[in-house]
């Protein structure tokens, strides 16, 4: 579904992504993890063709990123971090507008919004939704075209525990139907529950990749969170230094 090979991208003197390689298989939930600024969003943007990599190549649904024909996006869903919408637009209008961008049959509106608990919000301005509702709407809109592969950047940021569970359950159902999901997240419980495989990034470089269990095992830590801190260099030396200086 997706191959990334030796991807590098820098902004000026900052190396955002360096020699990154990974593959994502069909029907897999793949987690891209790492602290803010590790290069996760840049990686997603290079894959989607909204940013041009300095070197390396990415192949999405069999198409190299530098020659992505717009029609390939019929089969791709995207939720960017911090989604913004036109002022004063209502949920139903935004839904209709987003659905109109796709040629192929889109999801049933009430059914899809219902799955995210938004069925009663059709007439509400998007700006009046709570942060959690807006986030759920962004995920719903990424799935509007029944994609084969969906990119979810910080999918449950701002969601309450119940809403997070609901989104997880829904994504698992879709995965079981063959949807491929690539997500970024800062919640390790989410990652452990959802992801078949993960890749932890630090300063644009891959620290480790594998299933959550493998990653925990290799790190010699007890939990995913500890393993994550271990691989992103935020446990041990750095933390102790901070504590010492305080």
């Amino acid at each position, binding site marked *: 579904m997706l191959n990334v090979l030796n991807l590098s991208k820098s902004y000026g003197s900052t190396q955002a992504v360096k020699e990154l390689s990974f593959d994502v298989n069909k029907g897999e939930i793949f987690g891209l993890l790492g602290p803010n600024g590790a290069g996760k969003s840049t990686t997603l943007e290079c894959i989607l063709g909204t940013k041009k990599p300095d070197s390396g190549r990415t192949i999405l649904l069999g198409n190299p990123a530098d020659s992505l024909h717009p029609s390939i*996006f019929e089969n791709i869903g995207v939720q960017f971090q911090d*989604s913004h919408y036109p002022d*004063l*637009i209502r949920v139903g*209008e935004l839904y209709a*507008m*987003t659905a109109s961008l796709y040629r192929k049959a889109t999801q049933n509106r009430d059914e899809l919004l219902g799955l995210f608990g938004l069925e009663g919000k059709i007439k509400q301005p998007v700006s009046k939704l709570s942060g959690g509702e807006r986030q759920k709407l962004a995920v719903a809109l990424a799935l509007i075209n029944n994609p084969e592969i969906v990119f979810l950047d910080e999918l449950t940021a701002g969601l309450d525990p119940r809403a997070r569970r609901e989104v997880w359950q829904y994504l698992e159902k879709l995965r079981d139907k063959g949807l491929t999901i690539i997500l970024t997240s800062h919640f390790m419980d989410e990652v452990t529950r959802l992801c078949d495989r993960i890749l932890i990034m630090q300063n644009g470089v891959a620290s480790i990749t594998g299933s959550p269990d493998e990653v925990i095992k290799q790190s010699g830590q007890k939990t995913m969170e500890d393993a994550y801190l271990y691989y992103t260099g935020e446990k041990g030396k750095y933390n102790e230094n901070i504590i010492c200086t305080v």
Partner: protein
Amino acid sequence: MRTLFVLFKTELTLALREFSGVLFGMIMPLGIMMLLGILYNNKPAFEGADYTMMQQAFPAVMTIGICATGLMSIPLTIAGYREKKILKRFKVTPTSPAVLIGAQFLSNLVTALISSLIVCASAVLVFDYSFRGSLFPFITSYFLVLASIYSIGILIASLSPNMKTANILCSIAYFPMLFLSGATIPYEIMPAGLQKVSSLMPMSQGIILLKGISLDIPVFSPVKPVIILALTALICTAVSVRIFRWE
């Protein structure tokens, strides 16, 4: 086409809901029409003129809607869509963000046309306005003025890296063109010095052109305004196409 239609409908709905476009593009020109009508109705434009003040002012007031949509709504909305990364979001769908910009143009075009029709209707129905020139060149010129002003709007959208800059550039373009071009305050009552400054603006040239045609002035030559308007449209569009960024 279906996509364009849905986007157009949404853009128009949002513009009506937002209301400032309705206020500045429709209600304001109607108000100015009423004011001019009440103040000057049936008075000759000047001593010995064979047309009235109303006939002279009518084509200018008709362009207020073009000004409001082209120099405010279009650049502000497009710059906003870029800043909010809505155009970027379109890049990862099968639909080009250019379709959204097209829908934005259409929605503003319809607003401008409605504005002009309101001005026409009020002039004809309330103040017995009669059109003296020939209709076809007038309508053609109207769309030339529209193309020219809208191209300035898209140039502003292309030049502005963010909403703040877009706001400043819009104000710089919009208010002088609105007040000094003759659209609101009749060009004829301005002092000579101001008239000179005014005639540098494409909007003024557009109004001169529309006036010349609608009043059927025998000595009027449309060549200069037509060239200025066409050049403005061509240059601004060409520059915009080169420098426009989706994000």
